[in-house]
């Protein structure tokens, strides 16, 4: 017993060190940088800031939930065993596996209203000009969300596939015998088993999405007119403006967003521990 | 080989004490079965012996060495788990040789001992297979093989047969018994199945609620259960128990129950008028001309005999009759035991009189 404890502690040391050195110190330092009240005053004065907070909320809530509804649906699709679906799943995972810079840039080019492929197809099919994908603020933010969904959908679908595969077949067989329709099977068998996984994943994805810099930065750069910034890009924008304090203040301000999410995760985890 | 000693062993989880001072001495080469209902603490006791649980108080010794603070690996014991706990990523050969490999034994010795164990257990054909490719009984045998290869001082079995079907269980029971007779290794065997306990043990320790209720040879327990708990627990079908009053007059003794009287043997203990529990094993009840009146409600032929369930004044008694019985449900019968086969227990303490 004691040797187990000893080894256990020894094995925890690498991570604890990593945490202290590369998480705790930088985080405390970040808070220290954000200590000046003037930075907050300036932040709240900046007209871009409120728009950014709204965008971030929309981004996190809408993009993540849309992503998860699709992922939940697709996980049901991918558990079908067909050779072509196996091949499709390899293709499907690519957006997650390939790097952001070329892919998001490719989307940006694709959506160019004048010479991009999407609008030229629209023009060829209908003879009308396509929408200005990236210059209308609402549309541009939607496109950023779409890119985000495109990029991270495969990962989460993978997770939900695993969740579905873990449901014992007998439950479906029993439900079929009881005469459940497809929707009822989902409602009474699939969903109850997957609810917790779904919720945990959604929360984790929300936390990660808050830190998603690429989808907005590379696609719209926050434009038009700084109307599509999210907190992650706003922070970097302040750094670019040589306003480090304000950049750090955005962290602190974003905390009310993150705090409940992290709290939920930690609690979820504790419950796991006692099961 | 070794003897095992528990000396006033206690175990608490937090504030709850679940073993209240267990003492038990197991002789070298003995096969002791710990039996009891689930939650009685028998597995915990075994796991403490294995070094998987800490001892809260008291002492556990193997031979003369107190092992409270000794790591499992240094206790020289082998254990067979209910789930077998075979390493799924190792073949049967590797599973059986694992402990020797950890001891850095020479290859030849490992092969030799694994081979011998495989032969004993009839596993030669399966040595290169993985656990998932084996049937339940085969896995069970591999788990035993893993223990045999160790040639340990003590074998521990933690409900090793409960995952097998009934027929296989009987067969494995015999095999384990035979194995013990062959190897003569001190064995502690935990089960909740009293039939297993009866058939395999040299001595049985019946446990309940963190205590040993009775320790003894199987038939001694069967014949003279020390208290109501043991009486009910050992034997199948279970002993019939009835409330009664003990009467004594002119050197004769009997019990009165529901208007009937059952004679007791001459030396029966207890005072006149004492409130008692009367216990009679089903095979000792006779259908006769006198005794307790009741109505047959169920007749279950088992082939070798017949089991009757008789409803007597609110109590339900089980009667085992040798051979076939002509009784039909609805028949009214009178029941009485032979005087030598009546067990008397104190009504309040449950202890044998």
């Amino acid at each position, binding site marked *: 017993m004691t040797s*187990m404890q000893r*080894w256990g*502690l*020894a*094995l*925890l040391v*690498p*991570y604890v060190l990593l*945490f202290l050195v590369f*998480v705790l110190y*930088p*985080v405390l*330092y*970040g808070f220290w940088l954000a200590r000046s009240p003037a930075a907050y005053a300036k932040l709240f004065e900046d007209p871009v800031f409120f728009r950014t907070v709204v965008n971030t909320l929309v981004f996190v809530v809408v993009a993540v939930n849309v992503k998860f509804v699709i992922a939940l649906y697709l996980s049901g*699709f991918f558990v079908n065993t067909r050779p072509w679906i196996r091949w499709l799943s390899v*293709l499907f*995972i*690519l*957006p997650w*596996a*390939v*790097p*952001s*810079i*070329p*892919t998001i*840039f*490719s989307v940006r*080019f*694709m959506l160019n209203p004048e*010479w991009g492929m999407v609008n*030229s197809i629209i023009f060829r099919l209908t003879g009308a000009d396509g929408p200005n994908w990236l210059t209308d603020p609402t549309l541009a933010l939607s496109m950023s969300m779409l890119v985000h969904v*495109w990029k991270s959908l495969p990962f989460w679908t*993978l997770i939900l596939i*695993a969740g579905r595969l*873990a449901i014992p077949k007998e439950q479906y067989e029993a439900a079929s015998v009881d005469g459940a329709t497809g929707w009822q099977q989902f409602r009474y068998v699939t969903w109850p088993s997957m609810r*917790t996984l779904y919720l*945990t994943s959604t929360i*984790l994805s929300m936390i990660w999405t808050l830190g998603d*810099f690429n989808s907005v930065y590379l696609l719209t750069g926050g434009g038009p007119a700084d109307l599509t910034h999210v*907190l*992650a890009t706003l922070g970097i924008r302040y*750094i670019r403006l040589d306003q480090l304090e304000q950049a750090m203040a955005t*962290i602190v301000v*974003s905390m009310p967003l993150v*705090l409940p999410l992290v709290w939920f995760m*930690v609690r979820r*985890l504790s419950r796991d*521990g006692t*099961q | 080989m070794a003897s095992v000693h528990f000396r006033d062993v206690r175990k608490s989880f937090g504030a709850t004490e679940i073993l209240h001072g267990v003492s038990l001495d197991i002789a070298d080469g003995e096969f002791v079965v710990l039996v009891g209902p689930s939650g009685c603490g028998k597995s915990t006791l075994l796991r403490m012996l294995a*070094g998987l649980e800490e001892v809260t108080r008291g002492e556990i010794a193997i031979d003369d060495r107190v092992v409270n603070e000794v*790591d*499992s*690996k240094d206790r020289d014991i082998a254990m067979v*788990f209910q789930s077998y*706990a075979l*390493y799924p990523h190792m073949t049967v050969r590797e599973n059986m040789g694992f*402990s020797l490999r*950890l001891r850095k034994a020479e290859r030849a010795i490992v092969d030799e001992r694994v081979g011998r164990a495989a032969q004993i257990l009839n596993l030669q054909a399966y040595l290169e297979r993985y656990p998932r490719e084996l049937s339940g009984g085969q896995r069970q045998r591999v788990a035993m093989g*893993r223990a045999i290869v160790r040639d340990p001082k003590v074998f521990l079995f933690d409900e090793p047969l409960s995952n097998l079907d009934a027929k296989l269980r009987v067969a494995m029971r015999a095999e384990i018994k035979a194995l013990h007779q062959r190897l003569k290794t001190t064995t502690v065997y935990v089960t909740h199945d009293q039939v297993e306990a009866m058939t395999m043990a040299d001595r049985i320790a019946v446990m309940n609620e963190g205590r040993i209720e009775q320790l003894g040879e199987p038939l001694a327990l069967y014949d003279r259960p020390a208290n109501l708990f043991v009486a009910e627990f050992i034997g199948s079908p279970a002993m019939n128990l009835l409330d009664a009053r003990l009467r004594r007059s002119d050197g004769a003794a009997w019990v009165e129950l529901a208007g009937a009287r059952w004679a007791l043997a001459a030396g029966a203990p207890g005072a006149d008028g004492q409130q008692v529990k009367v216990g009679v094993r089903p095979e000792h009840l006779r259908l006769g001309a006198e005794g307790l009146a009741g109505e047959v409600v169920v007749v279950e032929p088992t082939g070798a005999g017949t089991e009757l369930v008789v409803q007597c004044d609110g109590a339900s008694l089980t009667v085992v009759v040798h051979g076939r019985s002509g009784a039909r449900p609805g028949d009214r019968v009178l029941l009485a035991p032979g005087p030598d086969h009546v067990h008397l227990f104190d009504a309040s303490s449950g202890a044998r009189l």
Partner: protein
Amino acid sequence: MSWKKAGTEARLLLVGIPVALWSAFPIYHIFLFAISSKDSAFSGALWPAQPTLRNFGAVFKQEHFFLYHFWQQMWNSLWIAATVGFLTLLIATCAAFAISRLRVRGGRLVMNAALFTYFIPAAFLAVPMYKAMSVYGLLNSSWSLVLAMVTLASPYAIWVLKQASDKLPWELDEAARIDGATPMQLFRLVYLPLMLPSLVAIGTYALLLAWNEYLYAFLLLSKETNVTLAVALGHFLSADDSPWELLMATGLLYGLPPAAIYYVFRRYMVGGLTAGAVKA
């Protein structure tokens, strides 16, 4: 019966085809740029008039001065990603094993602390991380990026591995201990082999995270011969006139190793990544 089957198949195709288009189209678009010549890349056509492989040749031969260090940078990316994968696995596996199998006191606390990392979205931690690396004298060494990425990948890794560990039967550990295994032997001979699918999946996860990282990479690395390919691709974004067709060709090549890694390990991914997360 066969009608019903055909109907099911048709319904699956109805989902499968849009999924295929959705996943492949932006990547196809990259490919299109990569095989287009300079002037036809922006034509908006679905297939270039004169497809060419010259862009790939230019990348391989490091012909454009944005790409003078292409192979070096590819190697840097590989080295860094592989090291991140390895270190994340090492650290997270040790921690998960200690928390889940050795039930070390304080394990829960460490788990919660790990999750605390996500308290601050990664993009915000960048500058403080830079400061930290500067204090530790790690700046401009690839170790700074490696350690930063290990830090970001570890919480999720520990979390998934811990839950996957929890699912292994406890008796296996007990059996091994009785068989005479020390905790380290238990770790090496029983735990690691059984955790293999999860380890592969988490390793891949960490590797991909590091492979694709841009923000931390440009902040923490400096010299052109030290940076990863992602940072080098960033150069293309800076010029008034970039050879976009070369960017896309490079990007496509950059995407190949992770795609290959995923392909090789795909049978582990579904089960492994989530073995733990599934617990209802």
